[in-house]
Structure formats: C-alpha cells, structure tokens
C-alpha cells in the first residue's frame, strides 16, 4: 500500500508526512453509503508531559523505510478483527509540531458505532506500541526525548 498524501482510491489510507495532516479530508473520505458511523481520533500537541511543564513544541522522527508499512500492518490487523469496517485512515505527522497541532489521526468508518469506536481505539493503541516513531520534547526547562516511551512490539502481539 503506497503512503498517499491525498485520499487513495481504495479503502485504506496510511500516511507519514512532515506536512499538516488532512484531518477534514480523511473524515469526509471515510464516509461511505454502507457505513452509519465514523470515529475520528486526533492526537494533539499538549503543553505538558510527565515532569515537564511548559512544553513548547515537539519534534517527531521515524524510521522512514518502515513506518508507513507498520501503519499498514496496524490497519490490516484492524480489518481482520473487525471485517465490517468501511474505510480506515492512519496518518502520522513527523518533524516540528507546535502546541495544538495534530500529530496523529485515526479515522474508522463502520456500519454501526460500536465497531467504529472499538477499531479506532485499537488502532491508536496498537500504533503507539508498534510504529517506529520517536518524539522529542522542548519545554521550559530543556529539550529531551519523551520519557513516556515503550519497547516496540509487533502488531501480532497486540492484545485481543
């Protein structure tokens, strides 16, 4: 699956980009006639983290050759678990992000809300554990890598 900056022809959309994420495009793209529910999750840049007040901006970097493929793995795993899903978008921003900017987007459509909520929740939780991306925080007291990090796991290890 190619990483597409514009909405793709198929039902899956994965993207890792330095550009602002196309949240509104992803939401409207996900609406299809057979689906009555669309859940959108956005992660945004917050002004604090554990022990770090006054966060000013973030810098995300990824393992470029594998980040998009991992997003695609997360998406494929969600489709296996919820075959009724309509369209699904997993988008992650890299590079410099200011406060309130959107760093990650999950959009999932389904015939009914339960599957859309469950799949979107599963996608963001699995993405955070399995996609090779690192966040560096700059706050009032300095700059360092995020302290809330976790050992990378395989998509197949995600809890059922």
């Amino acid at each position, binding site marked *: 699956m190619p990483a597409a900056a514009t909405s793709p022809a198929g039902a899956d959309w994965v993207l890792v980009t330095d550009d602002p994420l196309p949240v509104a495009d992803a939401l409207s793209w996900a609406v299809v006639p057979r689906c009555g529910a669309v859940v959108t999750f956005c992660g945004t840049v917050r002004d604090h983290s554990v022990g770090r007040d006054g966060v000013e901006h973030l810098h995300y970097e990824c393992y470029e050759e594998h980040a998009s493929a991992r997003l695609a793995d997360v998406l494929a795993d969600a489709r296996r678990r919820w075959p009724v899903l309509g369209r699904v978008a997993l988008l992650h921003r890299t590079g410099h992000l200011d406060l309130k900017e959107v760093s990650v987007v999950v959009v999932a459509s389904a015939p009914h809300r339960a599957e859309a909520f469950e799949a979107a929740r599963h996608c963001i939780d699995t993405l955070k554990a399995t996609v*090779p991306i690192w966040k560096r925080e700059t706050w009032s007291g300095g700059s360092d890598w995020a302290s809330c990090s976790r050992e990378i796991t395989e998509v197949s290890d995600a809890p059922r």
Partner: protein
Amino acid sequence: MARLRLLGPARDAAGTARADVPGATVGEVLDHARARFGERFAVVLEHSATWLNGAPAARDESVGEDDEVAVLPPVSGG
C-alpha cells in the same frame, strides 16, 4: 559488515544515523557499535530493540553488507 541504522535517541547518543559496521552476525555488529560509539550509546542500546531489514532480529542471525541492522529505542509515537 552490515549497514547500521540508529534511530531517535540511539542516533542522538551515537552522533550519527548511519554507519557501516563490521560483524558477521547481528550481535557482532552491535558489539562493534557499542565499542565505537561509547558509554552513552551503550546505555541506550541496552534498552533498545534490534531489527534486521525491518523485522525483529536475534543476536545470532548472520548479516552481510546488504543487510540493515537497526537500533530502535523505546518508541513514543502518537
């Protein structure tokens, strides 16, 4: 010899994102990297996962010059 890829905090600690490192196995490549890049890198390495060509790798897997060994510290995407 393999291509070594250092990511996020590992890149920071080593001062470089890529290097060609001798070694016939993943473990030998990592041992050379530890010796070359010093104590701060060694600490990061201890808490990192290792991939070979995009998949988790064991130390005893053999590598050639077309292989990429990557050091992946704990991730923080999202």
